[in-house]
């Protein structure tokens, strides 16, 4: 009994406008979720991209060195040089990709809908 009274009391002062606001908030919360999901997905994609870029360049450099070693019979020297060059190429690729990602995000048309302070901390 008392419980029911309390709930009816708390409900009474909330005007139509407040109710509408609550409903809007609920809807907004619903619509926010997929956005966050795609965001996490693209962050995962970014991480994938940067890491594969680095690893693959090292592997390609080492592989090329190994091939040249087989051709000239100078194992393992060209392989070691290839490893070094591959690592350099990997770092260069990773930096290039990161630069492009930065450029892509900074060119977003933000308009007057600036992000909140707590939205930015990741």
């Amino acid at each position, binding site marked *: 009994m008392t419980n029911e009274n309390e709930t009816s009391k708390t409900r009474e002062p909330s005007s139509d406008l407040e109710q509408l606001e609550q409903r809007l908030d609920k809807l907004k919360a619903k619509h926010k979720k997929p956005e966050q999901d795609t965001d996490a997905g693209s962050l995962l994609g970014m991480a994938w991209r940067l890491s594969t870029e680095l690893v693959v360049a090292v*592997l390609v450099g080492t592989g090329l060195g190994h091939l040249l070693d087989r051709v000239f019979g100078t194992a393992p020297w060209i392989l070691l040089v290839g490893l070094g060059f591959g690592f350099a190429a990997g770092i260069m690729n990773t930096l290039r990709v990161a630069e492009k990602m930065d450029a892509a995000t900074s060119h977003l048309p933000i308009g007057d809908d600036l992000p909140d302070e707590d939205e930015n901390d990741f």
Partner: protein
Amino acid sequence: MANNPMEQFKIKEIFDGPQIGPIDLSFTNSSLWMVIGSLAVIIFLGLSARGKLIPGRLQSMGEMSYEFIADMLRDTTGPEAAKWFPYVFTLFFFILFANLVGMNPYAFTTTSHIAVTAALAVFTILLVIIAGIWKNGLKWFKIFAPSGLPLIMYPIIIPIEIISFLSRPVTLAVRLFANMTAGHVMLKLFAIFIAYLVGKDALSAGMAIVPIMGTAAIVALEFLVAALQAFVFAILTCVYLNDVYHVDH
């Protein structure tokens, strides 16, 4: 049911084909699901291309996908690259539908084999090389030697640029293949775990709710990954096509 999470990637011959040199032209389950994926693309685009003035749902999906790829190509490669649109569009939809069709139970995911993704990647990079030489002549090889460096840097920078260029098809192939394989293995492991728990005893069967929820979450994630990887492959193709038109970078 198979208890091995790698069992799903096994190639099975459906009917024999001719053997040409080292190439076995048998029709396998991988080929079957490639055909099914391609047919799904054709059906989707066929249904969406009805050309009404006020588009229905399907038609606007088709139009949106056209604009999506066209915008991507224009923004990343430039307006002169519009003639590459059919290639990028085909690539995107083939990978997208191969991934999505592979998400069905009992289906085979063709993109979980590096042979398939590597073939697509090699095709892309060969196109870049051939079109680059076709358009710029031997000047195209300048992309390996950026201008404006002291002479002493060239012996170092040229091998680095060549390795960087050659690693492109490898990254393309490895990324798609690794994403699809890892996702499907994870899905299978969770599913096997459910079957194991349910089969053990009543208490464990109750605990199976945890991997069931995990499986549901991974299925959702996998659909996201399926679309994302198709997009990544297509947009990187556009980025690499840049080298055909912008030799001095």
